[in-house]
C-alpha cells in the first residue's frame, strides 16, 4: 500500500532518517518510494493502515500521513487514476461522514476555486454527510506548485495527489518541550525539536538505557525519556546539573516538570577523558552535543602547564576533599575529543546500539572537518543543519557486532589514534580547535 507523508517545512535532511529510524523502532516493513528535499511530500510503501499510524506516532518532523489514492501531473489525469485504481475502496466510505480539503504547496486559491476543485470529485459515490469538523474521513487534494508560482502567475501545479487522511504525527510535543517554557536551561541547551529528532534517530525507546556525556541542562536525556528510555548524563561542570540552589531550576527539576522522574537514570560530574564509566557494553544509545569551543570552552581535567603549577598540584593533594575544591582544567583538542567519543561508544554501546552526536563544520569545502570514523562503528546517516557560513551535522553511527569488525582495522585505528593524540599538543584554544579558529575568522582563508 502506498502512503503520502506530509512533512513540516523544516530540517529537510533529517526527515527521511527520522522516518527510517521510526520504522526500525516499530519494526515495520517500510520502503521509501519517492522523496525530494524541495518537496514536503514523501511517498512510502507500508503493509497496512495500522502500520502507517505506527510509523507516525512518534514522528516530530512529519505532519501527517495519508492513504495515497493517486498521483498525476494534471487534475484530469488524477481523476483517471482515481477512477481506474481506487474504485474497490469506494464502497468502504459510502456512508461515512467526510470532507474534502485542498492543500496547495507554494500555490494559492480563492475559496471559490477551491470549491470548484473539490466539486470535480463529485463522481465518488459518497452518500454520507459532509462534516467540516471531525468527519469520519478527510480527503485531501495535494498540489505541488513551482517555487514563486503566485508572483509569477503560474497557472497550474506541477503535480497533484489525492489522499485519505490516516494519522497525524507527534509534532505537538515540540511545544510541550519548548525551551521557553522549561524551568531550567542554559545558553547552549539544544532546542526541543532537534533534541526529540535526535532521540528518534538514536532509537530511544521503552526500557532502553541512554547516556549523554555532555549533559548540560539535560535536553537529550529528557527527549530520550519522553520516548520511554531511561536517561543518564554527566558533565564536567557540576553546576550545570545542580542548578542554582532552587530545586525546580536544576536538571532533575526539569525531569520533574515533565513528569519524567521514573525515567531519570542518574547524573554525575565527570570528564569523558577520565570517565568513571566502566568499559563494558552498557548503553543502547549515546547522544550528545559536545562543546565546540566557541560559546562553551572545550576543557578536560588536567593542567595546561604542569611544570609552572606545582602549587596547584599541592593544592589538589591537600584540598581535594574540601567541598569547595574545584579541580583545574585545561583546553583540549576538538578532534581528539571526537575520537575519544567514538572510542568510548565502541567500548560501551551494545550491539546495534547507536551513537548520535552533533558536530559543527565550515561550509567551505577546504575547511570542512571530516566525519570521524571508528572500525566498530558504521555511519548510519549524516544530517545537516545549515547556517550562514557553517553548519552543524548530526552524525549517527551503529555499533557493529564484534563478528563484523576487522581486528587489523582496529589495531591500525588504535595506532593512528595514539599518533594523532600526540600531534594534538597545542595549548591555546585556537590551536586545538580548527572549527573555533575558522569561526572567529568568519571562515575566511587563513
Amino acid at each position, binding site marked *: 500500500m502506498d502512503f503520502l507523508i506530509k512533512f513540516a517545512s523544516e530540517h529537510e535532511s533529517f526527515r527521511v532518517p527520522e522516518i527510517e529510524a521510526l520504522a526500525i523502532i516499530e519494526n515495520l516493513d517500510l520502503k521509501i518510494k519517492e522523496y525530494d528535499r524541495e518537496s514536503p511530500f514523501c511517498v512510502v510503501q507500508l503493509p497496512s493502515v495500522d502500520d502507517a499510524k505506527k510509523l507516525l506516532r512518534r514522528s516530530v518532523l512529519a505532519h501527517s500521513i495519508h492513504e495515497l489514492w493517486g498521483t498525476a501531473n494534471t487534475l484530469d489525469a488524477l481523476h483517471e487514476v482515481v477512477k481506474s485504481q481506487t474504485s474497490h475502496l469506494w464502497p468502504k466510505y459510502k456512508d461515512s461522514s467526510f470532507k474534502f480539503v485542498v492543500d496547495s504547496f507554494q500555490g494559492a486559491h480563492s475559496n471559490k476555486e477551491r470549491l470548484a476543485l473539490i466539486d470535480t470529485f463529485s463522481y465518488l459515490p459518497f452518500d454520507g454527510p459532509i462534516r467540516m469538523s471531525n468527519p469520519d474521513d478527510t480527503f485531501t487534494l495535494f498540489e505541488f506548485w513551482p517555487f514563486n508560482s503566485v508572483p509569477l502567475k503560474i497557472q497550474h501545479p506541477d503535480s497533484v495527489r489525492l489522499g485519505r487522511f490516516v494519522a497525524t504525527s507527534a509534532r505537538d510535543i515540540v511545544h510541550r518541550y519548548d525551551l521557553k517554557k522549561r524551568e531550567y536551561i542554559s545558553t547552549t541547551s539544544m532546542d526541543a525539536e532537534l533534541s526529540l529528532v535526535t532521540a528518534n534517530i538514536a532509537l530511544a525507546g521503552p*526500557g532502553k538505557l541512554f547516556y549523554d556525556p555532555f549533559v548540560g541542562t539535560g535536553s537529550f536525556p529528557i527527549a530520550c525519556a519522553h520516548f520511554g528510555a531511561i536517561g543518564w548524563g554527566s558533565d564536567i561542570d557540576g553546576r550545570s546539573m545542580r542548578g542554582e540552589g532552587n530545586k525546580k531550576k536544576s536538571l532533575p527539576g526539569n525531569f520533574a516538570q515533565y513528569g519524567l*522522574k*521514573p525515567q531519570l537514570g*542518574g547524573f*554525575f560530574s565527570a570528564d569523558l577523558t577520565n570517565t568513571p*564509566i566502566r568499559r563494558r557494553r552498557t548503553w543502547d544509545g549515546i547522544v550528545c552535543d559536545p562543546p565546540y569551543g566557541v560559546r562553551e570552552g572545550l576543557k578536560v581535567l588536567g593542567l595546561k602547564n*604542569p611544570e609552572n603549577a606545582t602549587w596547584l598540584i599541592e593544592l*589538589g593533594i591537600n584540598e581535594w576533599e574540601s567541598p569547595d575544591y574545584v579541580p583545574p582544567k585545561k583546553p583540549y583538542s576538538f578532534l581528539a575529543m571526537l575520537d575519544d567519543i567514538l572510542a568510548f561508544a565502541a567500548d560501551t554501546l551494545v550491539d546495534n546500539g547507536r551513537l548520535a552526536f552533533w558536530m559543527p563544520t565550515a561550509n567551505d569545502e577546504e575547511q570542512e572537518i571530516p566525519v570521524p570514523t571508528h572500525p566498530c562503528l558504521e555511519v548510519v546517516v549524516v544530517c545537516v543543519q545549515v547556517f550562514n557560513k557553517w553548519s552543524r551535522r548530526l552524525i549517527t553511527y551503529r555499533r557493529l557486532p564484534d563478528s563484523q569488525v576487522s581486528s587489523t582495522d582496529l589495531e591500525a585505528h588504535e595506532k593512528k589514534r595514539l599518533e594523532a593524540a600526540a600531534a594534538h599538543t597545542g595549548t591555546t584554544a585556537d590551536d586545538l580547535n580548527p572549527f573555533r579558529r575558522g569561526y572567529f575568522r568568519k571562515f575566511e582563508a587563513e
Partner: protein
Amino acid sequence: MKVLSLNFLTCAVKACKSSSSSYPLHPQDAELVQDEIELNPDMLINVLPRLDWTALRTTSSELGFPPLPEQAPTQEELRTDEKTLRDLHHLLLETQISEGKLVCANCGHSYAVKEGIANFLLPSHLV
C-alpha cells in the same frame, strides 16, 4: 544516585582501571532515600544481562539489603518471577544514595555524593 548507576561506575583514576579491587566502588556514610517508581519489567529484563551480578551482590550487602542469590536469574526466569522483579526494581531503581561517599578499594580515593549527584572530577595529581 541509583544503585543501578553504581553498577556501571568504577574509579575514574586511569591507573585503577586494570585493578579488580577498583570495582565496585564502596558506599560510605551513605544516606539512602527511597523513591516510589512504577515497575518497568521491560527495562529490568533489558538491563539484566548488562549487570555485573557479583558487584551488585557486594553493593547490596554493603547497603544492608538481604543477600541476593549467588546466580543472576535468566531473562526468561525474571520475566515470570514477579517477586524477584519487584526486589530488583526496589534495589536498582527505587533506592538512591542522596549523600555520602563512594570509595575505591584500590587507591583509597573517595568520591563525594551530594544531593544525589556524585562528583568524579579528579584533582591534578590523579589525572
